[in-house]
């Protein structure tokens, strides 16, 4: 194709591209907000919207007020009086609020009022209003201000190692606070912390993959029977599948937990595989039966004429031809189990999966929820990989010529 034709083609398809890209952008923005937030500090998240991470930081808040009241004595950079160096973080941190600054300023310096030349407004409220921006400016002078734009990986690091301390893992490692917990020693060994995400990730895979496989195999078998074999009560059983889909799994928790306790499979992988499979099957069979059922009758007939039995027809025809449906089923089954919290919490309490581990990271009042932002991203990496792997099966023309129009 010549370049000109290609360009022409692009413009004629412009509305199509616009629509697709617009929808993608709209869909992406909420997640993008979380993604940006996951790199921001807690204070930045609390005070400004996530898009501020992309905006230039104002360094001049409070400069006029500072110039008016302080610059004459302390200098524009705050360093003029060595005994009261306003660019020293130690000094500035002693006055975290306008009120503390006001109380200090009310005390005389060398028997003279502190602000000799330009007195503050006499009403305390007005004085506080004047001092508030000065605090901000002093923080900028001392190199502590404007950190709302600072990005870091600490939310991810904390989530991966399962750190629950006061500040973040890396800075607590530097100060030695992390070692005091008795759990962390700031080496690579911390990655294997049972409260971290490493082990939880393995646990989740060990729950998710066999469950997905069980559901696909059992559902494909049953769906084939519903579609191409005759037995009594087919229609009623099929209707039942719909009813079974709506039964809330919360209703099964107590009876199944009691059953598992009697069978001694409480808190085992076997137990949770079976539970998830049981609840995944109605939808899976329903979906696959509709797909397998819509395959053309002729291909089965000719297979039987060639002497194939129904098992061979299932394996060589039904299964491979329904791969697009099996792939989409596989993706969703995987993701539903991957994101499950309640079932894992109850039936696999000794081997925490990702969702359970993540909630364990959070303090009851949720003040350290910012760790969740990193953890949420880590936890959906694998489902996205699965999506790309399975999506390759949706190949155009797989059924070309075989589906009746």
């Amino acid at each position, binding site marked *: 194709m010549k370049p000109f034709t290609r360009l022409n083609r692009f413009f004629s398809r412009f509305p199509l591209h616009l629509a697709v890209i617009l929808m993608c952008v709209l869909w992406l923005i909420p997640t993008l907000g979380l993604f940006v937030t996951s790199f921001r500090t807690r204070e930045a998240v609390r*005070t400004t919207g996530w898009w501020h991470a992309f905006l230039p930081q104002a360094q001049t808040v409070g400069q006029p007020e500072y110039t008016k009241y302080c610059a004459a004595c302390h200098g524009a950079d705050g360093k003029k009086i060595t005994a009261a160096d306003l660019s020293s973080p130690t000094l500035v941190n002693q006055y975290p609020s306008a009120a503390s600054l006001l109380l200090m300023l009310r005390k005389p310096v060398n028997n003279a009022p502190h602000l000799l030349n330009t007195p503050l407004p006499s009403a305390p409220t007005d004085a506080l209003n004047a001092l508030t921006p000065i605090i901000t400016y002093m923080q900028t002078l001392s190199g502590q201000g404007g950190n709302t734009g600072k990005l870091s990986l600490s939310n991810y690091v904390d989530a991966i190692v399962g750190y629950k301390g006061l500040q973040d893992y890396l800075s607590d490692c530097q100060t030695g606070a992390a070692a005091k917990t008795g759990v962390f020693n700031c080496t690579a060994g911390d990655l294997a912390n049972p409260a971290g995400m490493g082990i939880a990730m393995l646990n989740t895979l060990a729950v998710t993959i066999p469950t997905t496989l069980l559901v696909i195999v059992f559902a494909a078998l*049953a769906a084939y029977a519903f579609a191409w074999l005759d037995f009594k009560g087919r229609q009623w059983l099929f*209707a039942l599948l719909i009813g079974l889909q*709506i039964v809330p799994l919360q209703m099964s928790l107590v009876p199944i937990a009691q059953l598992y306790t009697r069978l001694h499979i409480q808190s085992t992988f076997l137990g949770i595989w079976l539970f998830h499979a049981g*609840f995944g099957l109605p939808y899976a069979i329903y979906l696959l039966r509709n797909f397998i059922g819509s395959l053309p009758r002729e291909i089965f007939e000719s297979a039987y004429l060639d002497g194939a039995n129904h098992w061979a027809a299932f394996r060589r025809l039904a299964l491979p031809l329904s791969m697009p449906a099996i792939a989409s089923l596989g993706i969703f089954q995987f*993701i539903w189990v991957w994101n499950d919290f309640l079932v894992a919490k109850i039936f696999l309490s000794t081997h925490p999966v990702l969702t359970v581990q993540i909630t364990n990271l959070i303090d009851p009042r949720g003040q350290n929820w910012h760790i969740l932002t990193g953890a949420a991203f880590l936890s959906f990496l694998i489902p996205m990989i699965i999506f790309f792997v399975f999506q390759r099966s949706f190949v155009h023309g797989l059924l070309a010529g075989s589906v009746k129009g």
Partner: protein
Amino acid sequence: MIPRIMKQGRWAPWFYLLPALILMTVFILYPTIGTIRLSLLDSTSRHSAASTCSAGQPCWGVFENYRYALTNPAMLLALRNNALWLLLMVPGTIAGGLFFAILADRVRYESAAKAIIFLPTAISFIGAGIIWRFVYDVESGGGPQIGLLNAILVGLGGHPVTWLSNPAINNFSLMLVGVWLWGGFCMTILSAAIKGVNAEILEAARVDGANEWQVFWNIMYPTILPTIIVVTTTMAIIILKIFDVVFVMTNGNFGTEVIANRMFALIVTNAGQSTAIAVILIALTIPIMIFNIRRFRKEEAAR
């Protein structure tokens, strides 16, 4: 009339069905029988539900929990909201998903575009709660807005809106989250169906001068109709028991109550009422069942 091709021996079908039937019986059917039994008992599951009736008040006897489930104001609100969710969200997600699947089918960056729409599906509901907090957050004091929508509104000179606590709009705010979460599901399944449409027939129609609208309604739509019905059924069921979104964002406050949230709120403290709600939820699928059986018969007759 069952096609002859399906006659494959008496026991063979059960060999295919057995593993699935056993699992579904143990994990869903058997507990459901217990659920029905509990729904006729009081909050402690020891006495008949009739014992909770008080004199001078309406009483449905052993079905007293069902009286709660069908007449209590909180439940009426939940039923109304679920109907609203069904009416708006099922067509919304399916039309949107289908539209996107068809468009994406024609661009070269299809798999990236589909991955973006699919992305929310992969996010756990805890993650989704946080994500939408940054969209709907409202600052009523003097501080800056950290919620995206209100930042835009205020930036344009408007007033911040309480998206989640204003009963006039909060149900729609929640449904938007629902569409965002479930749109990818519909899109993925429908996209798989579109891939099954014979590309040669589509091309042939276009060569014959059919426009895209006609190509869709005359060729694509009939082929993917079974899948559309499957997705509609599945979405209807998912919406009937919608819970996560509401639980995380408002916990049913400010008039956003839904059936499943009510059920879960009562599950420990009043097993009788909770299970009665569950049974009603199951009963609500009966129309969907009838519809599907009819289609099942028609489809088999046609082949």
